């Protein structure tokens, strides 16, 4: 690197991470990613880190949510001299409408995921897929709750349950969602009824919210916010809870298992396939196909030592947490959203399967510098320059999977000599779910609740959601997790945050050494890590189920529990829907990056203060991870003293 490039690099880094004086080229909390970033810079390969710099400075009106581009009079933005857009909409309306539109996108993506799953269960029930019923007990239990004949033969029952899910998705917004009534704590239902936010069918709610957020329809900021709450509750119970449950029924409920994480798990000797995205259906089929002896023989004939299927983002977490059930043979998790270009840049990846969301357009540019083949495996995923589409079809997935594995083997021959795999890797325990925790505790939540009552564990915090470069990659999620466990708060990770703490070794029992005395003793007694891997971002639904179970066991509302949530690096629209759901669910919800609402004093004060009187939850915005952990701890301690423990 010449001196000009070096100086430029230092200048860029300095303008990137606020509050960090490091000038050594560090862009990520992970040594592996920093090493790969150095390699991409040397090679002149553009990644998210470089593009981030070129976008600076970013427009303050957009950051504050007061830019409206809906009609051709726009764009309008709110300034001191122009407190209203041309139509007369003020900052409050514009901010609320923009926020609702973000939440709608999230709700729609979750609905797509659930629909693919329900269709797969139907096809499986008809014997047309390579999948089976992974958790018959859960199938019968849930079928019973929704009013089906739980004694019916499993395949028939699974088909009926899938039909129930599809009809729940598609019914009118005036028909309340059965799953909300059946699964929400009664105290929550009462709070939501008061606000008239019990949602109907998800697709209808999406239609209503999109219609309302058109120009000149719903311009009342408070009603727009309530619409976002209603939509987010639909997302919570359908997109999250129902999706997780249906995935468990199809692919098996996560069971405790050991795996590995970080870029060092890549084996340069094998044909390497990466399952990237959120929907683990094609990925599971490919993982199974890759283990067939005839595929291994093909790989060996191509000069490779074998075939390995790795995970990336949430699809990876889904595989990891089921590697003791349907995803046996899983080779490890590479990283989260920001890592995608960097693992391609190792030069050792033959194929990336891109399922439902989070494949960034920049990935193609990086893939083109190497031999990596990108394939979209969901009918809604398309990327400029990517011509390989193997759109997931439940009835054809067995042959599609074999085709994908062969594609990867063929591509192994094109692998260049420029391969570099960082040596960083960490062990990781995965497979935590309400069921596996109950199993570990001997069938009852009591040992955990006793530890909370006694104060050995002060409370539980969900540190979940995306990764984000706004303050450097994964710095915040790892820092908040570390701070909380030090304070004897048990952390549950899900989504990209799971990949973050996994790579830093926080999901190993040995990480108990980094926890406070109380939490350390509990972790050692049970042999568990201080940060539990609950899986993918959809598995935030699993956290909802866990909190509901704990609230039920203690006989209180979720908002009274010593728990808190944090999305320290939230990035995209699904996270917006999740965050609003968490607030509606009664949780203190910390957000790292400041959400685009600060241009509206009304919306800001509702979200950060007034909503607490309505749902018990509220948003906490704090960019400093240590201060955020302190505030979450203070909230947990306040809830403890209110409960008299």
């Amino acid at each position: 690197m010449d001196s000009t490039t070096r100086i430029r690099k230092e200048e860029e880094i300095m303008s990137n991470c606020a509050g960090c004086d490091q000038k050594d080229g560090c862009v990520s909390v992970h040594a592996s990613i920093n090493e790969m970033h150095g390699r991409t810079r040397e090679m002149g390969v553009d990644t998210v880190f470089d593009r981030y710099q070129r976008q600076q400075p970013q427009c303050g009106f957009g950051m504050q949510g007061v830019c409206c581009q809906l009609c051709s009079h726009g764009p309008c933005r709110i300034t001191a001299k122009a407190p209203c857009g041309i139509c007369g909409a003020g900052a409050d309306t514009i901010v609320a409408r923009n926020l609702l539109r973000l939440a709608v996108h999230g709700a729609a993506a979750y609905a797509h995921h659930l629909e693919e799953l329900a269709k797969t269960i139907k096809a499986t029930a008809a014997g047309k897929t390579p999948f089976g019923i992974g958790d018959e007990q859960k199938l019968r239990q849930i079928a019973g709750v929704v009013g089906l004949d739980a004694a019916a033969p499993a395949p028939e029952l699974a088909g009926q349950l899938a039909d129930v899910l599809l009809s729940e998705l598609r019914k009118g917004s005036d028909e309340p969602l059965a799953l909300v009534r059946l699964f929400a704590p009664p105290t929550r239902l009462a709070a939501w009824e008061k606000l008239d936010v019990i949602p109907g069918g998800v697709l209808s709610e999406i239609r209503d919210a999109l219609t309302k957020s058109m120009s000149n329809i719903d311009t009342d900021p408070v009603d727009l916010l309530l619409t976002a709450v209603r939509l987010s509750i639909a997302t919570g119970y359908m997109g999250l809870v129902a999706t997780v449950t249906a995935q468990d029924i199809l692919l098996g409920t996560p069971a405790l298992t050991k795996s590995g994480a970080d870029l060092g798990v890549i084996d340069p000797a094998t044909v390497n396939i990466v399952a990237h995205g959120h929907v683990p259906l094609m990925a599971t089929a490919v993982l199974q196909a890759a283990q067939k002896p005839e595929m291994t023989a093909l790989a060996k004939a191509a000069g490779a030592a074998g075939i390995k299927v790795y995970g990336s983002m949430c699809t990876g977490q889904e595989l990891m947490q089921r590697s003791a059930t349907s995803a046996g043979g899983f080779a490890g998790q590479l990283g989260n959203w920001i890592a995608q270009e960097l693992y391609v840049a190792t030069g050792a990846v033959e194929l990336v399967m891109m399922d439902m969301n989070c494949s960034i357009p920049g990935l193609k540019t990086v893939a083109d510098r190497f031999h990596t083949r990108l394939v979209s495996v969901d009918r809604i995923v398309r990327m400029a320059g990517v011509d390989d589409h193997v759109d997931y079809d439940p009835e054809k997935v067995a042959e599609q999977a074999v085709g994908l594995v062969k594609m990867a083997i063929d591509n192994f021959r094109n692998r260049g000599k420029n391969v570099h795999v960082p040596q960083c890797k960490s062990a990781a325990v995965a497979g935590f779910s309400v069921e596996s925790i109950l199993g570990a505790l001997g069938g009852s939540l009591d040992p955990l609740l006793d530890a909370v009552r006694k104060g050995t564990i002060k409370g539980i915090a969900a540190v979940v959601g995306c990764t984000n470069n706004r303050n450097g990659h994964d710095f915040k999620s790892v820092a908040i997790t570390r701070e909380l466990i030090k304070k004897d708060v048990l952390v549950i990770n899900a989504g990209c945050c799971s990949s973050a703490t996994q790579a830093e070794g926080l999901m190993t029992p040995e990480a108990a050494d980094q926890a406070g005395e109380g939490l350390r003793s509990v972790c050692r007694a049970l042999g568990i890590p201080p940060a539990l891997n609950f899986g993918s971002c959809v598995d935030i639904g699993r956290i909802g189920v866990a909190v509901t179970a704990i609230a039920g066991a203690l006989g209180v509302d979720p908002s009274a529990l010593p728990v808190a949530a944090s999305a320290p690096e939230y990035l995209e629209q699904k996270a917006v829907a999740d965050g609003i759901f968490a607030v509606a669910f009664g949780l203190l919800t910390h957000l790292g990056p400041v959400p685009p609402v600060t241009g509206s004093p009304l919306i800001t004060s509702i979200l950060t203060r007034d909503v607490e009187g309505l749902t018990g939850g509220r948003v906490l915005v704090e960019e400093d991870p240590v201060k955020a952990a302190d505030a979450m701890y203070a909230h947990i301690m306040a809830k403890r003293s209110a409960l008299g423990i």
Partner: protein
Amino acid sequence: MINVAACNGCLTCALACAAAHSPSRDIVGAMADHTPPRIFIQAVRERAVPVTCRHCEEPACVEACMTGAMQKDPVSGLVSNEGHEQKCVGCWMCIMACPYGAVTAHPTERIAVKCDGCPHLDQPACVSACPNGALSWEEPDRFAARKGRRTAAALLEERAG
């Protein structure tokens, strides 16, 4: 004059500048014909800072110019390398000499580009366009007087509060 605290990095000034110097005279046209802006918003630690020509009393760029294209107008005080008998040849001496980084190379032509103070307008396009009042176009004394009055008012309030 620049009030850094008021800038929120929206880049409206840069767009308005490009528009004012584009043959089309509008933003969309300027984007289409790639007219470069002459005001820059630098990002420093997530803060936006406008940087443009100070039209210095003793301009280093004028001093450095080998053809004499860069001149300071004795009446208006504006520093520009356009509209004079001598032509800019793109030697970039002015770019090297400018202490503010306010002079840049044209992306396609071999000519240095800098703020010309929009002599065809009542006040520079960037100043008119800034939605945040971060830019102003006035004599240093007036700017200082305004700032002085603001400081005095703040001091009074502080004492009263």
